[in-house]
Protein backbone atom coordinates (compact mmCIF):
# COMPACT_ATOMS: atom_id res chain seq x y z
CA UNK A 1 0.00 0.00 0.00
CA UNK A 2 1.04 3.59 -0.21
CA UNK A 3 3.25 5.02 2.48
CA UNK A 4 1.29 8.10 3.48
CA UNK A 5 4.03 9.61 5.57
CA UNK A 6 6.52 9.40 2.75
CA UNK A 7 4.03 10.68 0.20
CA UNK A 8 3.07 13.65 2.32
CA UNK A 9 6.66 14.85 2.40
CA UNK A 10 7.13 14.80 -1.34
CA UNK A 11 7.26 18.17 -2.94
CA UNK A 12 6.77 18.94 -6.54
CA UNK A 13 7.88 21.91 -8.54
CA UNK A 14 7.35 22.49 -12.23
CA UNK A 15 10.90 23.65 -12.80
CA UNK A 16 14.18 22.71 -11.20
CA UNK A 17 15.87 25.41 -9.10
CA UNK A 18 18.36 25.94 -11.91
CA UNK A 19 15.58 26.41 -14.41
CA UNK A 20 13.81 28.80 -12.08
CA UNK A 21 16.93 30.91 -11.73
CA UNK A 22 17.34 30.94 -15.47
CA UNK A 23 13.75 32.01 -15.99
CA UNK A 24 14.02 34.71 -13.33
CA UNK A 25 17.16 36.11 -14.90
CA UNK A 26 15.56 36.03 -18.32
CA UNK A 27 12.49 37.87 -17.14
CA UNK A 28 14.58 40.43 -15.30
CA UNK A 29 16.60 41.12 -18.43
CA UNK A 30 13.49 41.46 -20.50
CA UNK A 31 12.01 43.84 -17.94
CA UNK A 32 15.15 45.95 -17.94
CA UNK A 33 15.23 46.19 -21.72
CA UNK A 34 11.57 47.13 -21.77
CA UNK A 35 12.07 49.74 -19.07
CA UNK A 36 14.98 51.30 -20.94
CA UNK A 37 13.03 51.32 -24.21
CA UNK A 38 10.01 52.93 -22.62
CA UNK A 39 12.04 55.63 -20.94
CA UNK A 40 13.79 56.38 -24.21
CA UNK A 41 10.47 56.81 -25.99
CA UNK A 42 8.91 58.79 -23.16
CA UNK A 43 11.91 61.11 -23.10
CA UNK A 44 11.10 62.50 -26.52
CA UNK A 45 7.36 62.53 -26.02
CA UNK A 46 5.49 65.74 -25.61
CA UNK A 47 2.94 64.69 -23.02
CA UNK A 48 0.83 67.76 -23.51
CA UNK A 49 0.21 66.61 -27.08
CA UNK A 50 -0.58 63.10 -25.97
CA UNK A 51 -3.15 64.28 -23.50
CA UNK A 52 -5.04 66.41 -25.97
CA UNK A 53 -4.96 63.73 -28.65
CA UNK A 54 -8.64 63.07 -28.14
CA UNK A 55 -9.42 66.68 -28.89
CA UNK A 56 -7.24 66.57 -31.98
CA UNK A 57 -9.01 63.47 -33.19
CA UNK A 58 -12.38 65.03 -32.67
CA UNK A 59 -11.25 68.14 -34.50
CA UNK A 60 -10.02 66.15 -37.46
CA UNK A 61 -13.16 64.07 -37.46
CA UNK A 62 -15.32 67.18 -37.69
CA UNK A 63 -13.28 68.49 -40.55
CA UNK A 64 -13.26 65.21 -42.42
CA UNK A 65 -16.98 64.66 -42.33
CA UNK A 66 -19.06 65.23 -44.33
CA UNK A 67 -16.69 64.05 -47.06
CA UNK A 68 -16.32 66.02 -50.27
CA UNK A 69 -18.17 63.59 -52.53
CA UNK A 70 -17.84 65.46 -55.85
CA UNK A 71 -14.09 65.06 -55.47
CA UNK A 72 -14.54 61.36 -56.07
CA UNK A 73 -14.64 61.88 -59.81
CA UNK A 74 -11.26 63.51 -59.79
CA UNK A 75 -9.81 60.43 -58.25
CA UNK A 76 -10.45 58.17 -61.24
CA UNK A 77 -7.08 58.88 -62.80
CA UNK A 78 -5.13 58.34 -59.56
CA UNK A 79 -6.92 55.05 -58.98
CA UNK A 80 -6.02 53.81 -62.43
CA UNK A 81 -2.47 55.01 -61.90
CA UNK A 82 -2.27 53.10 -58.65
CA UNK A 83 -3.51 50.00 -60.42
CA UNK A 84 -0.85 50.39 -63.10
CA UNK A 85 1.88 50.88 -60.54
CA UNK A 86 0.94 47.75 -58.67
CA UNK A 87 0.33 45.55 -61.67
CA UNK A 88 3.27 46.55 -63.85
CA UNK A 89 5.50 46.63 -60.83
CA UNK A 90 4.49 43.12 -59.86
CA UNK A 91 5.01 41.81 -63.38
CA UNK A 92 8.45 43.39 -63.59
CA UNK A 93 9.37 42.11 -60.18
CA UNK A 94 8.26 38.58 -60.94
CA UNK A 95 10.16 38.57 -64.24
CA UNK A 96 13.32 39.49 -62.36
CA UNK A 97 12.61 37.16 -59.48
CA UNK A 98 12.26 33.94 -61.39
CA UNK A 99 15.77 33.72 -62.83
CA UNK A 100 17.14 34.90 -59.50
CA UNK A 101 15.22 32.17 -57.74
CA UNK A 102 16.80 29.53 -59.94
CA UNK A 103 20.20 30.98 -59.20
CA UNK A 104 19.51 31.07 -55.49
CA UNK A 105 18.14 27.56 -55.11
CA UNK A 106 20.73 25.05 -54.02
CA UNK A 107 19.32 22.42 -56.34
CA UNK A 108 19.34 24.41 -59.54
CA UNK A 109 22.11 26.92 -59.22
CA UNK A 110 24.92 26.58 -61.77
CA UNK A 111 27.47 27.93 -59.32
CA UNK A 112 27.24 27.32 -55.62
CA UNK A 113 30.22 29.44 -54.65
CA UNK A 114 29.61 32.61 -56.57
CA UNK A 115 26.21 32.97 -58.15
CA UNK A 116 24.20 31.47 -55.36
CA UNK A 117 25.40 33.78 -52.57
CA UNK A 118 25.16 36.70 -54.97
CA UNK A 119 21.56 35.87 -55.84
CA UNK A 120 20.69 35.38 -52.17
CA UNK A 121 22.25 38.71 -51.35
CA UNK A 122 20.22 40.47 -54.01
CA UNK A 123 17.02 38.86 -52.70
CA UNK A 124 17.69 39.76 -49.09
CA UNK A 125 18.58 43.31 -49.94
CA UNK A 126 15.41 43.69 -51.92
CA UNK A 127 13.39 42.35 -49.02
CA UNK A 128 15.08 44.52 -46.44
CA UNK A 129 14.37 47.79 -48.13
CA UNK A 130 10.77 48.84 -48.00
CA UNK A 131 9.11 49.93 -51.23
CA UNK A 132 8.69 53.42 -49.89
CA UNK A 133 12.42 53.81 -49.49
CA UNK A 134 12.97 52.44 -52.96
CA UNK A 135 10.43 54.97 -54.14
CA UNK A 136 12.24 57.76 -52.35
CA UNK A 137 15.50 56.83 -54.05
CA UNK A 138 13.89 56.49 -57.45
CA UNK A 139 12.06 59.79 -57.23
CA UNK A 140 15.39 61.44 -56.71
CA UNK A 141 16.91 59.57 -59.63
CA UNK A 142 14.23 59.74 -62.28
CA UNK A 143 11.83 62.28 -60.93
CA UNK A 144 8.36 61.94 -59.51
CA UNK A 145 5.74 59.99 -61.39
CA UNK A 146 4.48 56.53 -62.16
CA UNK A 147 7.75 55.07 -63.36
CA UNK A 148 9.38 55.61 -60.00
CA UNK A 149 6.46 53.85 -58.37
CA UNK A 150 6.54 50.94 -60.77
CA UNK A 151 10.22 50.39 -60.28
CA UNK A 152 9.96 50.72 -56.53
CA UNK A 153 7.27 48.06 -56.40
CA UNK A 154 9.29 45.85 -58.72
CA UNK A 155 12.44 46.16 -56.65
CA UNK A 156 10.62 45.23 -53.46
CA UNK A 157 8.71 42.37 -55.06
CA UNK A 158 11.82 40.68 -56.41
CA UNK A 159 12.94 39.65 -52.95
CA UNK A 160 9.53 38.55 -51.73
CA UNK A 161 8.63 36.45 -54.75
CA UNK A 162 12.19 35.25 -55.24
CA UNK A 163 12.52 33.91 -51.73
CA UNK A 164 9.29 31.95 -51.78
CA UNK A 165 9.99 30.56 -55.24
CA UNK A 166 13.52 29.44 -54.46
CA UNK A 167 12.30 27.77 -51.29
CA UNK A 168 9.71 25.94 -53.38
CA UNK A 169 12.36 24.91 -55.86
CA UNK A 170 14.53 23.53 -53.08
CA UNK A 171 11.62 21.61 -51.62
CA UNK A 172 10.55 20.10 -54.93
CA UNK A 173 11.22 16.39 -55.27
CA UNK A 174 14.39 15.59 -57.19
CA UNK A 175 13.13 12.38 -58.63
CA UNK A 176 11.27 13.69 -61.67
CA UNK A 177 14.26 15.72 -62.79
CA UNK A 178 16.65 12.86 -62.25
CA UNK A 179 14.33 10.53 -64.09
CA UNK A 180 14.21 12.86 -67.04
CA UNK A 181 18.00 13.08 -67.08
CA UNK A 182 18.19 9.36 -67.42
CA UNK A 183 16.05 9.50 -70.55
CA UNK A 184 18.71 11.65 -72.10
CA UNK A 185 17.01 14.99 -71.74
CA UNK A 186 19.27 17.99 -71.57
CA UNK A 187 19.46 19.99 -68.38
CA UNK A 188 17.05 22.67 -69.52
CA UNK A 189 14.50 20.14 -70.71
CA UNK A 190 14.74 18.16 -67.53
CA UNK A 191 14.07 21.25 -65.53
CA UNK A 192 11.28 22.41 -67.75
CA UNK A 193 9.35 19.18 -67.53
CA UNK A 194 10.45 17.83 -64.20
CA UNK A 195 10.58 20.88 -62.01
CA UNK A 196 8.58 23.70 -63.48
CA UNK A 197 5.17 21.99 -63.35
CA UNK A 198 5.80 21.47 -59.68
CA UNK A 199 6.85 25.02 -58.97
CA UNK A 200 4.45 26.81 -61.26
CA UNK A 201 1.47 26.89 -58.94
CA UNK A 202 3.65 28.39 -56.24
CA UNK A 203 4.95 31.02 -58.62
CA UNK A 204 1.48 31.97 -59.71
CA UNK A 205 0.04 32.00 -56.20
CA UNK A 206 2.89 34.02 -54.74
CA UNK A 207 2.74 36.52 -57.59
CA UNK A 208 -0.94 37.13 -57.09
CA UNK A 209 -0.45 37.45 -53.34
CA UNK A 210 2.36 39.96 -53.89
CA UNK A 211 0.16 41.88 -56.30
CA UNK A 212 -2.44 42.24 -53.58
CA UNK A 213 0.18 43.53 -51.13
CA UNK A 214 1.54 45.81 -53.82
CA UNK A 215 -1.85 47.43 -54.37
CA UNK A 216 -1.81 48.34 -50.71
CA UNK A 217 1.66 49.80 -50.97
CA UNK A 218 1.01 51.52 -54.27
CA UNK A 219 -1.82 53.50 -52.74
CA UNK A 220 0.60 55.37 -50.52
CA UNK A 221 3.79 55.55 -52.55
CA UNK A 222 2.54 58.83 -53.88
CA UNK A 223 3.33 60.41 -50.54
CA UNK A 224 6.95 60.53 -51.57
CA UNK A 225 6.03 61.45 -55.12
CA UNK A 226 5.80 58.14 -56.89
CA UNK A 227 2.35 58.59 -58.35
CA UNK A 228 -1.11 57.25 -57.70
CA UNK A 229 -3.58 57.96 -54.90
CA UNK A 230 -0.79 58.83 -52.50
CA UNK A 231 -0.06 62.02 -54.37
CA UNK A 232 -3.64 63.16 -54.17
CA UNK A 233 -3.53 62.37 -50.47
CA UNK A 234 -0.36 64.32 -49.88
CA UNK A 235 -1.58 67.37 -51.73
CA UNK A 236 -4.90 67.29 -49.90
CA UNK A 237 -3.17 67.06 -46.54
CA UNK A 238 -0.83 69.87 -47.47
CA UNK A 239 -3.80 71.99 -48.45
CA UNK A 240 -5.57 70.98 -45.23
CA UNK A 241 -8.52 69.85 -47.35
CA UNK A 242 -9.66 67.29 -44.79
CA UNK A 243 -12.99 66.59 -46.34
CA UNK A 244 -11.15 65.42 -49.43
CA UNK A 245 -8.77 63.38 -47.31
CA UNK A 246 -11.69 61.32 -46.04
CA UNK A 247 -12.80 60.64 -49.62
CA UNK A 248 -9.32 59.49 -50.57
CA UNK A 249 -9.08 57.28 -47.49
CA UNK A 250 -12.37 55.70 -48.41
CA UNK A 251 -11.19 55.06 -51.95
CA UNK A 252 -7.93 53.56 -50.66
CA UNK A 253 -9.82 51.24 -48.34
CA UNK A 254 -12.19 50.20 -51.11
CA UNK A 255 -9.33 49.55 -53.53
CA UNK A 256 -7.50 47.37 -51.02
CA UNK A 257 -10.61 45.41 -50.12
CA UNK A 258 -11.46 44.76 -53.77
CA UNK A 259 -7.88 43.72 -54.47
CA UNK A 260 -7.94 41.31 -51.53
CA UNK A 261 -11.15 39.80 -52.79
CA UNK A 262 -9.86 39.43 -56.33
CA UNK A 263 -6.63 37.91 -55.08
CA UNK A 264 -8.46 35.41 -52.90
CA UNK A 265 -10.70 34.36 -55.79
CA UNK A 266 -7.82 33.97 -58.22
CA UNK A 267 -5.70 32.07 -55.74
CA UNK A 268 -8.48 29.65 -54.89
CA UNK A 269 -8.94 29.03 -58.61
CA UNK A 270 -5.26 28.32 -58.92
CA UNK A 271 -5.10 25.94 -56.00
Amino acid at each position, binding site marked *: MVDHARAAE*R*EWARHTPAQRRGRAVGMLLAALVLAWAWRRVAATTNWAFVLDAGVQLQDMGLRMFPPDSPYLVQLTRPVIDTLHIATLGTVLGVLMAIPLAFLAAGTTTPSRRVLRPAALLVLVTSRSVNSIIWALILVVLIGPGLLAGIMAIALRSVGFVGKLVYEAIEEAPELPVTALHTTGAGRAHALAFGLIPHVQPVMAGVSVYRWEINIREATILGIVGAGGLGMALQSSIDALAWSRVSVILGVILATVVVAEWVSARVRSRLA
Partner: protein
Amino acid sequence: MSAPDLVLEVDGLVVRYGDGPDVLDDLSFSMGPREIVGLIGASGAGKSTLLRAVQRLVEPTAGSVRLAGTELTTLGAGGLRDARRHMGMIFQEHALVDRLTVMENVLCGALGRTSFWRALRRTFDPVDVAHAFELLERMGLSGLEDRRCDELSGGQRQRVGIARALLQNPKLLLVDEPTASLDPAASARIMTLISELCVEGGLSALINLHDVPLARRFCPRILALHEGRIAFDGPPSELTDAVLTEVYGEEAVEAHVAVGRGAKDDHGD
Protein backbone atom coordinates in the same frame (compact mmCIF):
# COMPACT_ATOMS: atom_id res chain seq x y z
CA MET B 1 -39.34 10.13 -4.35
CA SER B 2 -36.12 11.91 -3.57
CA ALA B 3 -34.13 10.08 -0.90
CA PRO B 4 -31.51 12.30 0.77
CA ASP B 5 -28.60 9.95 0.10
CA LEU B 6 -29.17 9.51 -3.64
CA VAL B 7 -26.10 10.57 -5.54
CA LEU B 8 -27.73 11.24 -8.87
CA GLU B 9 -31.36 11.74 -9.78
CA VAL B 10 -32.35 12.27 -13.40
CA ASP B 11 -35.96 13.16 -13.96
CA GLY B 12 -37.65 13.61 -17.33
CA LEU B 13 -34.42 14.64 -19.03
CA VAL B 14 -34.80 15.82 -22.60
CA VAL B 15 -31.96 16.88 -24.85
CA ARG B 16 -32.70 18.22 -28.27
CA TYR B 17 -30.38 20.04 -30.70
CA GLY B 18 -32.13 22.88 -32.44
CA ASP B 19 -35.10 21.62 -34.47
CA GLY B 20 -33.75 18.09 -34.68
CA PRO B 21 -35.10 14.96 -33.07
CA ASP B 22 -34.77 14.36 -29.33
CA VAL B 23 -31.42 12.79 -28.58
CA LEU B 24 -32.59 12.05 -25.06
CA ASP B 25 -36.29 11.64 -24.56
CA ASP B 26 -37.81 11.83 -21.09
CA LEU B 27 -35.11 9.91 -19.22
CA SER B 28 -35.60 9.15 -15.55
CA PHE B 29 -33.43 7.11 -13.25
CA SER B 30 -31.49 7.50 -10.03
CA MET B 31 -28.27 6.26 -8.53
CA GLY B 32 -27.44 5.67 -4.90
CA PRO B 33 -24.08 5.78 -3.18
CA ARG B 34 -21.46 3.20 -4.17
CA GLU B 35 -23.43 2.15 -7.22
CA ILE B 36 -21.64 1.14 -10.38
CA VAL B 37 -23.91 1.42 -13.39
CA GLY B 38 -23.03 0.28 -16.89
CA LEU B 39 -24.60 2.30 -19.69
CA ILE B 40 -25.05 0.38 -22.91
CA GLY B 41 -26.73 1.03 -26.22
CA ALA B 42 -26.11 1.33 -29.92
CA SER B 43 -24.00 4.20 -31.25
CA GLY B 44 -26.09 7.31 -31.44
CA ALA B 45 -28.50 6.08 -28.78
CA GLY B 46 -27.48 8.99 -26.58
CA LYS B 47 -25.03 7.49 -24.10
CA SER B 48 -22.32 10.13 -24.45
CA THR B 49 -24.98 12.81 -24.57
CA LEU B 50 -26.37 11.61 -21.26
CA LEU B 51 -22.99 11.88 -19.56
CA ARG B 52 -22.39 15.31 -21.02
CA ALA B 53 -25.88 16.48 -20.12
CA VAL B 54 -25.35 15.53 -16.48
CA GLN B 55 -22.23 17.71 -16.54
CA ARG B 56 -24.11 20.35 -18.50
CA LEU B 57 -21.41 20.29 -21.15
CA VAL B 58 -24.49 19.84 -23.27
CA GLU B 59 -27.46 21.86 -22.03
CA PRO B 60 -30.58 19.88 -21.15
CA THR B 61 -33.60 21.08 -23.08
CA ALA B 62 -35.97 20.05 -20.32
CA GLY B 63 -36.08 17.94 -17.19
CA SER B 64 -34.12 17.88 -13.98
CA VAL B 65 -30.76 16.54 -12.89
CA ARG B 66 -29.96 16.49 -9.19
CA LEU B 67 -26.56 15.75 -7.74
CA ALA B 68 -26.79 14.81 -4.05
CA GLY B 69 -29.94 16.83 -3.78
CA THR B 70 -28.71 19.92 -5.65
CA GLU B 71 -30.60 20.79 -8.82
CA LEU B 72 -28.00 21.26 -11.55
CA THR B 73 -30.09 22.59 -14.40
CA THR B 74 -30.83 25.88 -12.71
CA LEU B 75 -27.39 26.67 -11.36
CA GLY B 76 -25.55 29.82 -12.36
CA ALA B 77 -21.92 29.79 -13.45
CA GLY B 78 -20.43 29.82 -9.95
CA GLY B 79 -22.77 27.19 -8.57
CA LEU B 80 -22.21 24.98 -11.59
CA ARG B 81 -18.47 25.13 -11.09
CA ASP B 82 -18.86 24.06 -7.49
CA ALA B 83 -21.18 21.23 -8.46
CA ARG B 84 -18.85 20.02 -11.21
CA ARG B 85 -16.09 19.60 -8.69
CA HIS B 86 -18.06 16.78 -7.19
CA MET B 87 -18.36 14.96 -10.50
CA GLY B 88 -15.28 13.47 -12.09
CA MET B 89 -15.43 12.91 -15.84
CA ILE B 90 -13.17 10.50 -17.67
CA PHE B 91 -13.12 11.13 -21.39
CA GLN B 92 -12.91 8.64 -24.21
CA GLU B 93 -10.05 10.50 -25.83
CA HIS B 94 -8.35 11.25 -22.55
CA ALA B 95 -8.56 15.00 -23.12
CA LEU B 96 -5.14 15.73 -21.64
CA VAL B 97 -3.13 18.86 -22.23
CA ASP B 98 -0.34 17.41 -24.34
CA ARG B 99 2.34 20.01 -23.80
CA LEU B 100 2.02 19.90 -20.03
CA THR B 101 3.53 17.29 -17.74
CA VAL B 102 1.73 14.38 -16.15
CA MET B 103 1.75 16.07 -12.76
CA GLU B 104 0.32 19.29 -14.16
CA ASN B 105 -2.44 17.35 -15.88
CA VAL B 106 -3.33 15.43 -12.74
CA LEU B 107 -3.32 18.65 -10.72
CA CYS B 108 -5.89 20.03 -13.15
CA GLY B 109 -8.31 18.03 -11.06
CA ALA B 110 -7.61 20.42 -8.20
CA LEU B 111 -8.09 23.57 -10.28
CA GLY B 112 -11.62 23.88 -9.01
CA ARG B 113 -10.25 24.68 -5.57
CA THR B 114 -7.03 26.48 -6.53
CA SER B 115 -6.76 30.22 -6.98
CA PHE B 116 -5.69 31.64 -10.32
CA TRP B 117 -2.35 32.90 -9.04
CA ARG B 118 -1.40 29.62 -7.46
CA ALA B 119 -2.40 27.84 -10.64
CA LEU B 120 -0.30 30.26 -12.67
CA ARG B 121 2.79 29.82 -10.54
CA ARG B 122 2.17 26.09 -10.18
CA THR B 123 2.26 26.31 -6.38
CA PHE B 124 -0.59 23.97 -5.56
CA ASP B 125 -1.77 23.06 -2.08
CA PRO B 126 0.67 20.45 -0.66
CA VAL B 127 -2.29 18.27 0.29
CA ASP B 128 -3.32 18.14 -3.36
CA VAL B 129 0.25 17.44 -4.43
CA ALA B 130 0.57 14.59 -1.95
CA HIS B 131 -2.75 13.18 -3.08
CA ALA B 132 -1.59 13.44 -6.69
CA PHE B 133 1.55 11.44 -5.90
CA GLU B 134 -0.57 8.79 -4.18
CA LEU B 135 -2.86 8.53 -7.18
CA LEU B 136 0.03 8.27 -9.60
CA GLU B 137 1.47 5.46 -7.54
CA ARG B 138 -1.89 3.72 -7.42
CA MET B 139 -2.10 3.98 -11.25
CA GLY B 140 1.37 2.60 -11.68
CA LEU B 141 2.69 5.88 -13.07
CA SER B 142 5.27 6.70 -10.39
CA GLY B 143 8.32 8.46 -11.68
CA LEU B 144 6.52 9.82 -14.72
CA GLU B 145 5.23 13.01 -13.15
CA ASP B 146 7.56 15.29 -15.11
CA ARG B 147 7.08 13.66 -18.46
CA ARG B 148 5.11 15.50 -21.11
CA CYS B 149 1.81 13.84 -21.80
CA ASP B 150 2.40 13.50 -25.49
CA GLU B 151 5.30 11.17 -24.65
CA LEU B 152 3.07 8.58 -23.00
CA SER B 153 1.35 5.52 -24.37
CA GLY B 154 -2.42 5.40 -24.78
CA GLY B 155 -2.92 3.30 -21.69
CA GLN B 156 -0.77 5.60 -19.60
CA ARG B 157 -2.63 8.66 -20.84
CA GLN B 158 -5.91 7.10 -19.89
CA ARG B 159 -4.68 6.46 -16.37
CA VAL B 160 -3.54 10.08 -16.08
CA GLY B 161 -7.07 11.06 -17.02
CA ILE B 162 -8.44 8.77 -14.32
CA ALA B 163 -6.04 10.20 -11.74
CA ARG B 164 -7.12 13.71 -12.69
CA ALA B 165 -10.76 12.85 -12.16
CA LEU B 166 -10.05 11.19 -8.81
CA LEU B 167 -8.03 14.13 -7.53
CA GLN B 168 -11.27 16.08 -7.46
CA ASN B 169 -12.49 13.76 -4.64
CA PRO B 170 -15.75 13.43 -6.50
CA LYS B 171 -18.91 11.71 -5.38
CA LEU B 172 -19.74 10.52 -8.86
CA LEU B 173 -17.61 9.30 -11.75
CA LEU B 174 -18.85 9.73 -15.30
CA VAL B 175 -16.82 7.46 -17.52
CA ASP B 176 -17.10 7.69 -21.30
CA GLU B 177 -16.07 4.54 -23.19
CA PRO B 178 -12.93 3.68 -21.20
CA THR B 179 -12.31 0.59 -23.30
CA ALA B 180 -12.91 2.07 -26.74
CA SER B 181 -9.54 1.33 -28.30
CA LEU B 182 -8.31 -1.42 -25.98
CA ASP B 183 -7.91 -5.13 -26.54
CA PRO B 184 -9.96 -7.50 -24.32
CA ALA B 185 -7.20 -8.06 -21.76
CA ALA B 186 -6.49 -4.35 -21.35
CA SER B 187 -10.22 -3.62 -21.25
CA ALA B 188 -10.67 -6.05 -18.39
CA ARG B 189 -7.70 -4.53 -16.56
CA ILE B 190 -9.04 -1.01 -16.82
CA MET B 191 -12.52 -2.05 -15.71
CA THR B 192 -11.04 -3.89 -12.75
CA LEU B 193 -9.10 -0.76 -11.83
CA ILE B 194 -12.16 1.45 -12.06
CA SER B 195 -14.23 -0.95 -9.98
CA GLU B 196 -11.54 -1.14 -7.32
CA LEU B 197 -11.21 2.64 -7.21
CA CYS B 198 -14.92 3.06 -6.76
CA VAL B 199 -14.98 0.60 -3.90
CA GLU B 200 -11.87 2.13 -2.25
CA GLY B 201 -13.20 5.65 -2.55
CA GLY B 202 -16.85 4.92 -1.93
CA LEU B 203 -17.77 6.43 -5.29
CA SER B 204 -20.66 5.87 -7.61
CA ALA B 205 -19.94 5.52 -11.30
CA LEU B 206 -21.90 5.74 -14.52
CA ILE B 207 -19.87 3.98 -17.15
CA ASN B 208 -20.55 4.20 -20.86
CA LEU B 209 -19.62 0.89 -22.51
CA HIS B 210 -20.04 -0.50 -25.98
CA ASP B 211 -18.97 -3.98 -24.92
CA VAL B 212 -21.96 -5.74 -23.38
CA PRO B 213 -20.17 -8.75 -21.87
CA LEU B 214 -17.74 -6.38 -20.17
CA ALA B 215 -20.66 -4.40 -18.77
CA ARG B 216 -22.29 -7.57 -17.52
CA ARG B 217 -19.11 -8.70 -15.84
CA PHE B 218 -18.20 -5.51 -14.00
CA CYS B 219 -21.38 -3.57 -13.47
CA PRO B 220 -23.91 -4.76 -10.88
CA ARG B 221 -26.54 -2.67 -12.63
CA ILE B 222 -27.11 -2.06 -16.33
CA LEU B 223 -28.93 0.80 -18.00
CA ALA B 224 -29.68 0.27 -21.67
CA LEU B 225 -30.55 3.20 -23.94
CA HIS B 226 -32.43 2.85 -27.16
CA GLU B 227 -33.14 5.90 -29.30
CA GLY B 228 -32.88 8.21 -26.35
CA ARG B 229 -35.02 6.25 -23.92
CA ILE B 230 -34.30 3.73 -21.21
CA ALA B 231 -35.00 0.27 -22.58
CA PHE B 232 -33.71 -1.63 -19.55
CA ASP B 233 -32.70 -0.89 -15.97
CA GLY B 234 -31.66 -3.78 -13.80
CA PRO B 235 -29.05 -6.39 -12.91
CA PRO B 236 -27.09 -8.16 -15.68
CA SER B 237 -28.79 -11.44 -14.89
CA GLU B 238 -32.06 -10.01 -16.14
CA LEU B 239 -30.52 -8.70 -19.36
CA THR B 240 -32.07 -11.12 -21.86
CA ASP B 241 -31.40 -11.51 -25.53
CA ALA B 242 -34.83 -10.05 -26.18
CA VAL B 243 -33.80 -6.79 -24.57
CA LEU B 244 -30.50 -6.78 -26.43
CA THR B 245 -32.28 -7.29 -29.72
CA GLU B 246 -34.42 -4.30 -29.05
CA VAL B 247 -31.40 -2.22 -28.16
CA TYR B 248 -28.92 -3.36 -30.75
CA GLY B 249 -30.81 -5.15 -33.50
CA GLU B 250 -30.60 -8.83 -34.46
CA GLU B 251 -27.24 -9.39 -36.10
CA ALA B 252 -25.45 -7.43 -33.43
CA VAL B 253 -27.02 -9.59 -30.76
CA GLU B 254 -25.67 -12.74 -32.39
CA ALA B 255 -22.20 -11.23 -32.30
CA HIS B 256 -22.60 -10.05 -28.72
CA VAL B 257 -23.96 -13.36 -27.56
CA ALA B 258 -21.04 -15.15 -29.17
CA VAL B 259 -18.51 -12.83 -27.54
CA GLY B 260 -20.40 -13.07 -24.29
CA ARG B 261 -20.13 -16.84 -24.25
CA GLY B 262 -16.43 -16.55 -24.99
CA ALA B 263 -15.91 -14.02 -22.19
CA LYS B 264 -17.71 -16.13 -19.64
CA ASP B 265 -15.21 -18.91 -20.27
CA ASP B 266 -12.31 -16.54 -19.82
CA HIS B 267 -11.21 -16.61 -16.20
CA GLY B 268 -7.84 -15.14 -16.82
CA ASP B 269 -7.17 -11.42 -16.90
